[in-house]
């Protein structure tokens, strides 16, 4: 499992590899929590690539409901069909009605699409942004991997999709949903792993630059910041510096490009007060 994931450029630790393995064996969703930018969403795309299955993504937002997440009838097409039938003079009302609620007039939204595609990886992103009602609805779907459409009957997934749920913890997700899932907490990676991730993601960046940027971000993270930078920011920063043509970074350049890692004025000020040169010197040799 691990080897497969790492082949896609996504580095995993023991826990996560095990989580993926168990998710496949037990058909349980993986519930990912952790700070922003630590690779929760990226896990789903890596899994999809590793399993050679399409990634189906459902981005949750407030007010999301079944017609946006599960399925919807294609009303305009139904109407057209009706008109055409009228024009052709079809008299058989029953047949016409059953035709109207045919599978081909059903628009599959992400959840239904994931049930119908075998195999597939379903990413339910930022579940904490949806309302409670939607959570309850999702719970039903994830426990049975089937949906009942009144006009068509029950559709069941032959092979349950691999499901990844992510949450940024803006609110507590209900226990009933979590209980169904494998819970994985994403920590910020240590220096070696983070460096490996940066190197893997940005093969074009000079080794020295990657190492320096990682060291700087690790130092920033140990500070008391409003929003500690995630791995995504580390990669952004290295990319930004690389775009400037730098092969190594000094304190001045670091301060100048701080905007790609720190997104709060207070944080940036605090970072400027830091002795970035010392951090670099410690890594220097």
């Amino acid at each position, binding site marked *: *499992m691990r080897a497969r994931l790492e082949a896609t450029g996504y580095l995993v630790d*023991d826990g996560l590899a095990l989580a993926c393995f168990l998710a496949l064996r037990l058909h349980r969703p993986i519930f990912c929590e952790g700070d922003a930018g630590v690779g929760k969403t990226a896990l789903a795309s890596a899994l999809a690539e590793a399993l050679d299955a399409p990634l189906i993504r459902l981005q949750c937002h407030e007010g999301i409901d079944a017609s946006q997440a599960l399925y919807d009838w294609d009303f305009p097409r139904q109407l057209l069909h009706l008109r055409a039938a009228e024009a052709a003079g079809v008299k058989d009302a029953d047949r016409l009605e059953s035709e109207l609620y045919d599978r081909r007039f059903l628009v599959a939204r992400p959840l239904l699409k994931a049930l119908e595609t075998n195999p597939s990886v379903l990413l339910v992103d930022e579940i904490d942004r949806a309302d409670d009602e939607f959570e309850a609805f999702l719970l039903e779907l994830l426990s049975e991997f089937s949906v009942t459409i009144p006009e068509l009957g029950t559709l069941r997934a032959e092979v349950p999709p691999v499901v990844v749920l992510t949450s940024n913890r803006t609110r507590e997700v209900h226990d009933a949903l979590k209980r169904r899932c494998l819970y994985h907490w994403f920590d910020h990676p240590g220096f070696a792993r983070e460096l490996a991730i940066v190197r893997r993601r940005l093969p074009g960046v000079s080794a020295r630059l990657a190492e320096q940027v990682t060291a700087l971000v690790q130092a920033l993270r140990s500070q008391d910041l409003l929003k500690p930078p995630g791995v995504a920011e580390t990669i952004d920063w290295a990319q930004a510096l690389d775009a400037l043509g730098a092969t190594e970074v000094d304190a001045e350049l670091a301060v100048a490009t701080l905007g790609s890692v720190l997104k709060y004025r207070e944080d940036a000020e605090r970072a400027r007060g830091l002795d970035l040169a010392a951090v670099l010197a410690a890594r220097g040799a």
Partner: protein
Amino acid sequence: MRGVDGTGSGGAGRRTDGEHGRPDRAPQPRDVPTRPGADAALLGFARALRAAGVDASAERVHTFLRAVDELRPGMRADVYWAGRLTLCGGHDDLERYERVFAAYFGDAPRSRRTVPATPRPRLRLVVREGPAPGTAARDEHHDAPPAAALASSTEVLRHRDVAELGSADREQLRRLLAAFTLPGETRRSARRRPARRGEVDPHRTVRELLRRGGEPARLRRHSRAERPRRVVLLVDVSGSMAPYADALLRFAHAAARGTRTEVFTIGTRLTRVTRELSHRDPDPAMTALAEAVPDWRGGTRLGELLREFLDRWGQRGMARGAVVVLLSDGWERGDPELLGAQMRRLHRLAHRVVWANPRKARPGYAPLAAGMAAALPSVDAFVEGHSLAALERLAAVVRGAEPAPREGADRA
């Protein structure tokens, strides 16, 4: 680690090396067990976890056993991760899990970085306060000397003793509940509801059309729904607030009855008590609360805890657009500038910040406590909170009423 297809993963057959300890006596370090005593030992582990406060329900335990079945037998790291993935339900559980796992199966393997620990070493000394539970602990606020008003930053953990609520308390609660029936402030939500006027709702219109066999029908409309704003209560349970704590917590319970209310207690640590207070009956709610709050009548670290609240909950969304109410006297032992900075941060996030200070009602009160003075510029409404009438008015303010200019407290 291993192939997806699970070849060579040890599958269902766990070996039966006999070694297994007595399942019920917990803390002796032992090897991770294998069948046949394995399940018993794992169940014992789950029980130990439950005792430590992790909500390892039967369903979770069942998943845990299934997960262990899938893994290499007797591998400590695998059992560790299987348990962590299946038995834990949140970040708070992880620390407890580490602790129980280490105690139950011996020391944890070195390779792993530990979960970010709580900032300082804990005092695990938990003192039960007052006489035996259930007796006359009700008038505890009489024996709380006013000298307790000095906030201290040393951490003393104690649980609160609760007594059954008397009829007067129930009456108070009833009145507070009544005060909370006001509709509250709303915000426009992303969801749309059918409405008389508004934009055309294509879905319902077309469905209506279909129902009439394609004949043009009346246009259906919808518009944005309004949702009540979230209310977040931060209740100070430090020593200096002891005389008011009972009334304030009852207030919190009444507030939590409404939907979308979150309650935290602050003292020397931040405790989320929304779940404890969600019980309809005040007695079990107060008992659960007393169980959950470890820093009863300790010191105050307002600034630090406010920062913790904002880091862990507020900035991620809980405080965004919410009505945030602090029930505290503003005695801060720490750096008032920290409190000031965090209050500014909170003010930027929240829709409205209300500060209820029981001491404000005293004649000649001026917000001189350093913390209070630092916080005031970021407070939208500064109200009293010393009496039932004042709390009723606070409820009205939370629900969107203007705070009365002065002397309005007697009406309510």
